[in-house]
């Protein structure tokens, strides 16, 4: 076994390559940033109309609601909130995954490092500028203390891990399902609705709200935004997200072993 340090360097390099790989598609990222901004503005007007009709809905005031809108828009690129799939799904379909399985490295960590590199690039291009434009146009809720920034950062990072954990499982499902387009579409609907991308989950009453807020998708957008707004306890939020991230990554590890067994032993 190579020393831990070398292994860390390997995955760090993969993350760096993931970043650089995406930075070669600058035009696509800029187009994404533009779309995120325009849709952010449209969503903001819808939410403003809703909150002016029902002030204090879901525990937010109008400015909180607009802040929610732009912070959730910021999650779209890095967390692929409309169900954007990992490159791995394509590699499973084409059989290129055999090459990945031959490498002396973990398929899951490899994909994670690559995806985090991608997420970091899109964070810079597709998250920060639209949020700044939103702040300039509408004025967003400022963080209550300076500590809110690292707290939000930690919660956002756990959101990224949870999003990867989920999308990795969806990508690997291609090992068992001949045509994974249905699963991808379902994943897109689940991610966009239950994360709070469509409407903040806090406004849903009763059991629907409770269920929606307990899902892993809530850990991706709703919870980090609440941490920023200060409407949710920090440790409760991080524990909730950490539990989902750990559970999905553990399931991913099991699925990787299953996929390996399927390829290596059953030859599928």
């Amino acid at each position, binding site marked *: 076994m190579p020393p831990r340090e070398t292994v860390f360097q*390997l995955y760090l390099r993969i993350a760096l*390559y993931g970043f*650089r*790989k995406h930075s*070669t598609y600058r035009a696509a990222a800029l187009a994404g940033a533009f779309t995120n901004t325009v849709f952010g503005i449209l969503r903001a007007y819808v939410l403003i109309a809703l909150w002016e009709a029902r002030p204090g809905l879901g525990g937010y005031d109008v400015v909180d609601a607009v802040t929610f809108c732009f912070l959730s828009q910021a999650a779209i690129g890095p967390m692929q909130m409309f169900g954007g799939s990992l490159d791995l799904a394509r590699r499973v379909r084409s059989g290129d995954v055999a090459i990945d399985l*031959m490498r*002396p490295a973990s398929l899951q960590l490899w994909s994670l490092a690559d995806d985090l590199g991608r997420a970091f690039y899109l964070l810079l291009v597709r998250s920060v500028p639209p949020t700044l434009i939103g702040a300039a146009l509408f004025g967003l809720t400022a963080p209550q203390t300076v500590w809110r920034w690292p707290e939000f950062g930690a919660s956002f990072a756990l959101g990224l891990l949870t999003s990867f954990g989920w999308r990795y499982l969806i990508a690997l499902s291609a090992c068992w399902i001949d045509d994974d387009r249905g699963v991808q579409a379902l994943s897109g609907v689940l991610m966009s609705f239950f994360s709070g991308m469509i409407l903040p989950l806090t406004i849903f009453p009763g059991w629907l709200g409770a269920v929606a807020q307990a899902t892993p998708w809530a850990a991706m957008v709703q919870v980090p935004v609440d941490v920023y707004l200060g409407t949710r306890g920090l440790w409760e939020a991080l524990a909730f997200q950490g539990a989902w991230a750990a559970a999905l990554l553990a399931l991913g590890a099991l699925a990787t072993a299953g996929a390996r067994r399927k390829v290596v032993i059953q*030859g599928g």
Partner: protein
Amino acid sequence: MIEVERAGRSFTHRRKAGVLRRERHVVHAVRDLTFSVAPGEFVGYLGPNGAGKSTTIKMLTGILTPTTGRVRVAGLDPSRRRTALARRIGVVFGQRTTLWWDLPLRDSFELVRHLYNVDQGDFRRRLAELEELLDLGSFLHIPVRQLSLGQRMRGDLAAALLHAPSVLVLDEPTIGLDVVSKAALRAFLRELNAERGTTVLLTTHDLGDVERLCSRVMVIDHGRLSFDGTLGDLRATAPEESSIEDVVARLYTGGG
């Protein structure tokens, strides 16, 4: 270096045979395959499409376990010691690439160094050597997606050799290459085998590869070896003055 003993590999497919009934259908891709390759040999592994070549390669590289029999490569059981084996063999698939599509070729090599934990000094020395032999210098800084197929193949070959494996497995490495690229690749492989003593197993449909490179030829058909011998032995199976294509075609179609 490579030992295959009575290895077999079957696949079970289920297919619908009625509303609820499903039929199991077993396909034997490889059955009762036995051969061994000594260190330093250059072996051509031929066979018609669907004969079991790829299945054999998958068993040798550890991405498929044999259902029966035993396989050893560089002293290891491939599917059980996949990680250890990866450090001792190099694999190149003509139809796939291990390189990072969007990044300069050099970056893929740098990743290989980390992946196989190659010492910095060894890495520099080997890369300089490969750069010269494969003439990589002019496109090391170019993203892989912009390379020609011939350049990409040379890049893939270099990536497979940077950790100095003792066995090199090549699956149709010359597919789609023009005559000049083919000649360059062959010259390189010949030198690699002669100078470094790297054991090479080569599957190909290009009989020019076999004629120019392989001291020994194995032919697999219906999952079994139908021929194993020198190039001269292979020619001797057909009437004199047959072309190598005719000789092999006779073997594939069961004539001769």
